[in-house]
């Protein structure tokens, strides 16, 4: 083979994920606005693309499934069928099956599951077909795929009225064949022939006279007869039938009227006919789609994030080395005077520096992806959650185009998901409660992302009941997070922070939605691991807001350089809350080993970086020294250092796995002069400091 199939398959997976997301988004739009043609067209395009691309890489059952889906969408689109909530649910089930199929393709071992998936796929294909036949999907009762809906047209309707007037009863008979039935169509005819002996078969769904429609496992008959149920049942029961349901129909209005199907050619000129005479609308949509897709395909390439990592790292190194060369050139000019070649070199290097900076920025930009990728996942989640809890939620997404480093995007999803689930589960009230509180029935959940300086701010706001301060206090006391004395001294704002403490969220709180044993402490920790922070505001009865602050990129961080034990160390600036000068006599001992200082009203445990890194301690008595106050997980620690060096950007490098080293070393960086410095891990330092005091 001339091309690498594996590559194609990987591309296929990435494409498939994207298309599933596009379809999910479009359907959510459709649910809000059932007439949105553009949204339906985009679902169609995605299904079509998935059909072809899965066939190309040889996943025939995926292709078959999406093919059926495409047929159904084609019908819905061509006949202007409004999309009902039930249909959206069918679609979502389809997507879930697709997702399962895809994950099982990747996982060779999932044989048993695969059968199950194939089964649900078959069921769904039937539903797709029945929708494509003009039947509305069954609402959420019983397994999907049951009972094709009976629809009446003018003629049938009159017929029903006539028969009824002649004293016959009307029955709806639903028949389900066994899964392994042979010749279902023949059996269906047999049933109808039998029934015709004792009454009139008004219509069947699917229509058995229409040869283009295949008989699936289920079909329904509208039947009229003077006989009663047992006699009818006797006629209807032939072999290989799983079950027969007979229901007397008293009100024929319950049957849906079909949406007027325009006859393909005889109907009044529709919009489509106008735009693309002679072309079927489906074809038109596909060709325009291909054109669009071609356009974007030619302009993008997929690059692995590792390659971008390497590029960024190399560019950063070049920037650093340029600094060195620049310095040397400056010295040359100083030595040999101006006007010579040396000055030209200096000019040229300065010029080069500009390009290098641009290079670095461009590479950084190429790693950026819009946060909309994460946000849009929530639309489905919020919809499902709201349905499950009978809540009405209006999810408003803003700033979806705001870009963040791919690595951050990959890791921010879970914490955000947790907070979104919390907001729907605990934050927003039921429509009844909201009405009682004088609010609109629909709760508002607002996600926003925007730039602020060198950071990205993400807010998650709801207009629900807000956090209950008293409940938080009670819970914190119950779970032994604080004792009552501590509690008494805490300001309300500090009490709110208790929800971020480990152990606050307990098993008791676990619901099927949020909870799950992971609490806000995990959320905070994962955000801080990304160099970010999270804050909380709430007003009882008015709602709550979480603010997440994140750095733009992970590869380069702003760091405070400090000196201790003769070496320079870097502290991520996001972990440094302030730097202060103290006298060594200001340090108090607690419990013999631990040391603390007083910082305004707080007591902050303190650690001497010298003694930590070099097992020596220089300086004593009344000497002034520097303290960098670092924070992690809402806890603070002071770090005594010999000297504050400066603040600068550093490129994070990993220490190669060959050397075991202290847990508080997070990595290394290279300074402009080529020296390697080590990066300190604030989390571990805070832990050690607290450990020494307790």
């Amino acid at each position, binding site marked *: 083979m001339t091309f690498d199939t594996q590559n194609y398959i990987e591309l296929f997976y990435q494409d498939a994920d994207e298309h599933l997301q596009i379809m999910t988004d479009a359907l959510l739009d459709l649910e809000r606005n059932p007439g949105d043609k553009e949204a339906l067209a985009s679902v169609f395009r995605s299904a079509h693309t998935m059909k072809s691309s899965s066939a190309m890489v040889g996943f025939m059952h995926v292709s078959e499934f999406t093919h059926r889906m495409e047929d159904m969408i084609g019908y819905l689109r061509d006949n202007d069928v409004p999309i009902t909530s039930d249909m959206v649910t069918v679609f979502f089930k389809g997507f879930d099956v697709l997702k399962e199929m895809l994950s099982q393709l990747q996982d060779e071992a999932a044989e048993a599951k695969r059968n199950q998936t194939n089964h649900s796929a078959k069921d769904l294909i039937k539903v797709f077909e029945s929708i494509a036949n003009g039947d509305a999907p069954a609402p959420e009762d019983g397994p999907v795929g049951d009972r094709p809906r009976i629809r009446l047209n003018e003629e049938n309707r009159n017929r029903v009225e006539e028969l009824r007037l002649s004293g016959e009863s009307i029955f709806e008979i639903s028949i389900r064949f066994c899964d392994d039935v042979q010749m279902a169509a023949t059996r269906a005819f047999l049933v109808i022939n039998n029934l015709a002996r004792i009454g009139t078969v008004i219509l069947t769904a699917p229509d058995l006279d229409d040869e283009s429609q295949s008989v699936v496992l289920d079909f329904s008959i509208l039947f009229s007869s003077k006989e009663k149920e047992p006699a009818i049942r006797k006629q209807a029961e032939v072999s290989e039938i799983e079950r027969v349901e007979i229901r007397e129909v008293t009100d024929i209005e319950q049957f849906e009227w079909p949406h007027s199907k325009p006859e393909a050619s005889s109907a009044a000129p529709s919009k489509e006919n106008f735009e693309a005479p002679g072309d079927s609308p489906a074809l038109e949509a596909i060709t325009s789609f291909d054109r669009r897709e071609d356009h974007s395909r030619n302009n993008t390439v997929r690059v692995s994030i590792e390659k971008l990592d390497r590029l960024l790292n190399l560019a950063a190194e070049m920037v650093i080395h340029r600094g060195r060369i620049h310095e040397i050139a400056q010295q040359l000019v100083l030595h040999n005077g101006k006007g010579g070649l040396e000055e030209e070199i200096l000019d040229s290097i300065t010029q080069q520096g500009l390009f290098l900076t641009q290079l670095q920025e461009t590479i950084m930009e190429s790693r950026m992806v819009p946060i909309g990728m994460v946000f849009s996942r929530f639309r489905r989640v919020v919809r499902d959650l709201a349905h499950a809890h009978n809540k009405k939620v209006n999810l408003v997404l803003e700033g979806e185009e705001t870009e963040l480093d791919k690595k951050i995007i990959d890791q921010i999803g879970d914490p955000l998901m947790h907070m979104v689930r919390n907001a729907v589960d605990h934050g927003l009230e039921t429509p009844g409660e909201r009405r009682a509180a004088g609010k609109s029935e629909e709760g508002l959940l607002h996600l926003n992302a925007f730039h602020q300086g060198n950071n990205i701010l993400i807010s998650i706001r709801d207009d629900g009941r807000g956090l209950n301060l008293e409940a938080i206090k009670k819970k914190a006391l119950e779970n032994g997070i604080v004792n009552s004395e501590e509690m008494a001294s805490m300001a309300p704002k500090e009490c709110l922070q208790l929800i971020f403490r480990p152990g606050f969220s307990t098993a008791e709180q676990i619901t099927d939605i949020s909870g799950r044993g992971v609490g806000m402490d995990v959320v905070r920790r994962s955000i801080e691991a990304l160099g970010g922070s999270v804050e909380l505001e709430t007003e009882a009865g008015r709602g709550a807001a979480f603010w997440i602050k994140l750095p733009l990129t992970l590869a380069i961080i702003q760091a405070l350089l400090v000196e201790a034990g003769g070496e320079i160390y870097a502290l991520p600036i996001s972990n440094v809350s302030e730097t202060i000068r103290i006298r060594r006599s200001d340090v108090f001992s607690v419990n013999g080993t631990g040391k603390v200082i007083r910082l305004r009203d707080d007591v902050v445990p303190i650690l001497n970086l010298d003694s930590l890194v070099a097992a020596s301690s220089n300086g004593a008595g009344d000497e002034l020294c520097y303290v960098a106050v670092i924070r992690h997980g809402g806890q603070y620690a002071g770090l005594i250092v010999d000297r504050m060096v400066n603040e600068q950007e550093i490129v994070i*490098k990993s220490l190669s796995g*060959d050397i075991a080293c202290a847990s508080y070393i997070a990595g*290394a960086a290279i300074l402009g002069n080529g020296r*390697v410095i*080590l990066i300190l891990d604030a989390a571990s330092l805070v832990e050690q400091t607290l450990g020494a005091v307790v």
Partner: protein
Amino acid sequence: MAEKKKLEEQMNQFVSFVLHGEEYGVPILCVQEIIRYETLTRVPQSLPYVDGVLNLRGQVIPVINLRRKFELPEREPDKSTRIVVVEVQGRIMGMVVDEVSEVLQVNMDEIAPPPPMGTHLRTDFISGMAKMQDSLVILLEIDKILTTEESVILEQTAASAGE
């Protein structure tokens, strides 16, 4: 054929260096480069024979002190001190040596098995002794030196995890 011959030649070539007055050799194929000694960045709580880390064209690599590893008396680096950068099993690391002497062409027949005793070195660090005209060169088993290191690390990690 010429290629093969060249490779065979290379396999018999060793970079020799001096440590505490004795001559050692490492296979030339695992030596990446030899650089002058420069001040290293110490890494807290690393293994005792790890001198620190070094910036090798943007890569941060660990440097081990062979004198300490071989339990020889320590010595301040001077003008002739070098760092031999080796690559073993895909990992790059530096070794501090007193001075680098030359590239030796060793005839396979002249390599004797490691002596069972009589050296200060653990015999599994030695792949053989090369008898040169006027000296004896200790050929090092770089893999073994690293593997042993690894097991030490593992032991340490296991011990600290057990605490």
